[in-house]
């Protein structure tokens, strides 16, 4: 058997005189390295074509921890370095990994950790809402903040400029004509062709990380469920799994299976909505109406079976909040059959529509190479040959016992992203059939144990948008001292800037919808 990349990486680090003291958070290795070698370590990881997954920092007594999570073939490695408060800087990884750019700026805006050669000096989340040398995530910053009467307008963000004959700039948002979340898009275009697109996000920054501090596990689960409304199950699951790790709570298998059922249901509901919305963005309202109907019929019974239409707060620390009985199982199995039948009618209708085909094929191409460079995950990655699925590659209960159909497309265009969604719906239907018919008996909730002070947890969950990373550290008496959640949107958003290149301006909405990043999940 070939060597795992983790061992190769370890050897490579050693041969480059980078000491990495090894410990772990549950089964994820944690390597403590010197801050001066932070960039070099990333460089070596890139040589092994590891993926940069997430980065976050936290304030300790008189120093700061900076973390970077790497992954390859389902094996994760967490790099950590400690920086003294007096000398709060370290070399940047974003020169090596483009995906690290926004994350480092996020850390700089919120904690004041300076990445010395980060190529981008513009703030990211800070939109004038706090003063220049204030860092809201630091412990001395009050939770209530220091609100100004009127936040000054966030002008003069230095967007990339394009000059030349016939080049013009289109500012779009943050307030849009439709009812969607706020985000600003700056286009440079010649005629109708897009030369460049730059995103400016952060308009829905709610201070999730700050709000999490000093919460109890139950309250944190509720908070995590509200990071992004459409991924409420997946985020709550990730946060709960991280907390359960930290507290060494083993959840009953029935609870794990119920969580799996909820998560797959969420995936189906969102994919149904998305497929319709993509069609609607090219003026094909018929498909949207049909898929909206299916989504609504899918969501309604959830109120009864899971206590909430969108299954909000269904997942709680230690298990789940509602049990389902045999009748409900039967009913859900029946609903799966109905959904399959309906899809067998409707999917060919969109497949056979040549005018729709004309719009979706070749539009918004994301090459496998670019997808890999940005570490794109979820359906966006899977539509561009990025064969990664946490459920399969780093399985967790209940998926470790289930058979998961891998979904992969190679074209990388909008149509591929639609087909990945369609196939994932069918794959999820199969999973749900397995889970509902083999649901184990037992409790639905384990007793909570107070974790030790400083206990850490790190969870990876495959939500409907892709891999969600959730990190928690506990304080004394069952309180959270640090919580970080990385929504898949964080790594997918930058890819949109590449997806739209050489497309025409009116094709942007459908390209954007095919990616469907969460603004709220990204802005935290």
């Amino acid at each position: 058997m070939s060597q795992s990349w983790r061992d190769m990486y370890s050897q490579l680090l050693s041969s480059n005189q980078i000491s990495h003291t090894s410990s772990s958070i549950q089964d994820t290795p944690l390597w403590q390295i010197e801050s001066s070698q932070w960039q070099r370590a990333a460089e070596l990881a890139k040589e092994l074509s590891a993926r940069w997954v997430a980065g976050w920092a936290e304030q300790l007594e008189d120093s700061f921890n900076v973390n970077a999570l790497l992954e390859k073939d389902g094996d994760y490695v967490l790099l950590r370095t400690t920086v003294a408060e007096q000398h709060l800087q370290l070399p940047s990884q974003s020169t090596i990994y483009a995906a690290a750019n926004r994350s480092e700026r996020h850390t700089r805006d919120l904690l004041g950790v300076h990445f010395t050669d980060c190529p981008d000096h513009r703030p990211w989340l800070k939109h004038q809402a706090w003063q220049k040398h204030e860092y809201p995530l630091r412990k001395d910053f009050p939770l209530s903040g220091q609100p100004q009467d009127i936040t000054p307008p966030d002008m003069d963000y230095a967007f990339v400029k394009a000059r030349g004959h016939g080049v013009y700039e289109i500012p779009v948002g943050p307030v849009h004509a439709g009812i969607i979340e706020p985000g600003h898009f700056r286009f440079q275009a010649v005629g109708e062709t897009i030369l460049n697109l730059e995103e400016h996000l952060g308009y829905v920054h709610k201070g999730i990380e700050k709000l999490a501090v000093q919460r109890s596990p139950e309250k944190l689960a509720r908070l995590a469920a509200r990071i992004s409304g459409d991924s409420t199950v997946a985020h709550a699951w990730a946060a709960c799994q991280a907390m359960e790790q930290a507290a060494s709570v083993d959840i009953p298998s029935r609870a794990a299976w119920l969580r799996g059922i909820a998560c797959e249901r969420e995936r189906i509901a969102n994919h149904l909505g998305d497929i319709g919305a993509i069609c609607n963005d090219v003026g094909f309202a018929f498909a949207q109406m049909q898929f909206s109907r299916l989504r609504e019929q899918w969501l309604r019974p959830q109120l009864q079976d899971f206590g909430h239409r969108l299954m909000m707060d269904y997942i709680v620390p230690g298990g789940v909040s509602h049990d389902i009985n045999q009748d409900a199982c039967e009913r859900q199995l029946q609903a799966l059959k109905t959904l399959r039948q309906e899809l067998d009618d409707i999917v060919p209708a969109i497949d056979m529509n040549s005018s729709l085909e004309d719009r979706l094929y070749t539009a918004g191409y994301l090459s496998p190479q670019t997808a890999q460079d940005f570490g794109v995950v979820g359906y966006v990655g899977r539509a561009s040959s990025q064969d990664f699925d946490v459920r399969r590659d780093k399985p967790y209960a209940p998926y470790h016992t289930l058979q998961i159909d891998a979904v992969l497309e190679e074209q990388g265009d909008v149509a591929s992203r639609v087909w990945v969604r369609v196939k994932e719906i069918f794959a999820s239907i199969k999973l749900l059939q397995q889970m509902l018919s083999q649901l184990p008996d037992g409790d639905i909730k384990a007793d909570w144990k107070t974790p030790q002070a400083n206990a850490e947890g790190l969870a990876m969950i495959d939500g409907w948008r892709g891999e969600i990373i959730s990190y928690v550290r506990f304080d004394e008496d069952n309180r959270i001292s640090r919580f970080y959640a990385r929504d898949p949107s964080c790594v997918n958003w930058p890819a949109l800037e590449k997806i739209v290149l050489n497309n025409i301006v009116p094709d942007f909405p459908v390209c954007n919808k095919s990616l469907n990043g969460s603004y709220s999940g990204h802005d935290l």
Partner: protein
Amino acid sequence: MNWIFAFIQTLLFIVLAPLLVGWVKWWKCRLQNRKAPSLLQPYRDLLKLTHKQPVVSHTASWLFIATPYIVFSAMILAASVVPLISIDLPTAASADVIVLVGFFAIARFFQALAGMDVGTAFGGMGASREMTVSTLAEPAMLMAIFTLTMAASSTNLASAIGYVLDQGMVLRPSFVFALFAMILVAIAETGRIPVDNPATHLELTMIHEAMILEYSGRHLALIEWASAIKLMLYGVLISNIFFPWGIAVDFAPSALGTALLWLLLKLAVLAVFLAITETALAKMRLFRVQEFLSFAYLLGLLGLLSHIILEASR
């Protein structure tokens, strides 16, 4: 008496136009398996808009405020020269089909100027797109109409329709080409799918809607109403030129009544076809619109040629 009747007929145009829009919407809803709003909904929307305060940007000039009135007036004038239920119109005699195209052009010219006036990116973008579409659509429309006027030896709409009526039901290849050219142009000019999407909320994909994005209140009401009249105008042009049977040739009340019934029937059928295409098709990519309109032009040209080759020599 004739003038009074011309006035009443124009009024009919103005009053019935929102109903036609409501009818198209009703069918689109039903075809998408949805519950439909009442046929009167467009009237309610217009009424609602007139109650709202219009918001006008500080950077807008007088042009921005004048445009809705100019556009609405241009559409009324256009409506006054198109025979609706009777061909014997003093207004129709005074203005021919070239003037009609001119009225459309005036409205579009001011709308594009107003779109750029405020200085937002979308207004300019919409104006530029609208102009691209119309430079292609206008020649195609003229081609289609010339086919007809050559057959009738007159550019006057009323006499052209009279000519078709006199000839009776004869299948002319030139008219078939011209009809299809006219339908394609009508779709482009009234901003329907697959050229433009009247129901979209995506500012980057809009053509007509992008130009009027800054309008609100009674200004928006006027523009929406003008768009409805334009849709009806194209519907009436297609049905009365190519299928004129039923239209009144005098002012006898019974003839007028039948003519109105026939007209409503023809428009209703046309609207159903429109709703079906809008349901079955996605909007095409913007750069495909030129192919679409070139095709319309080609059809118009073929109509003209087939008239010269097949019909004029007789």
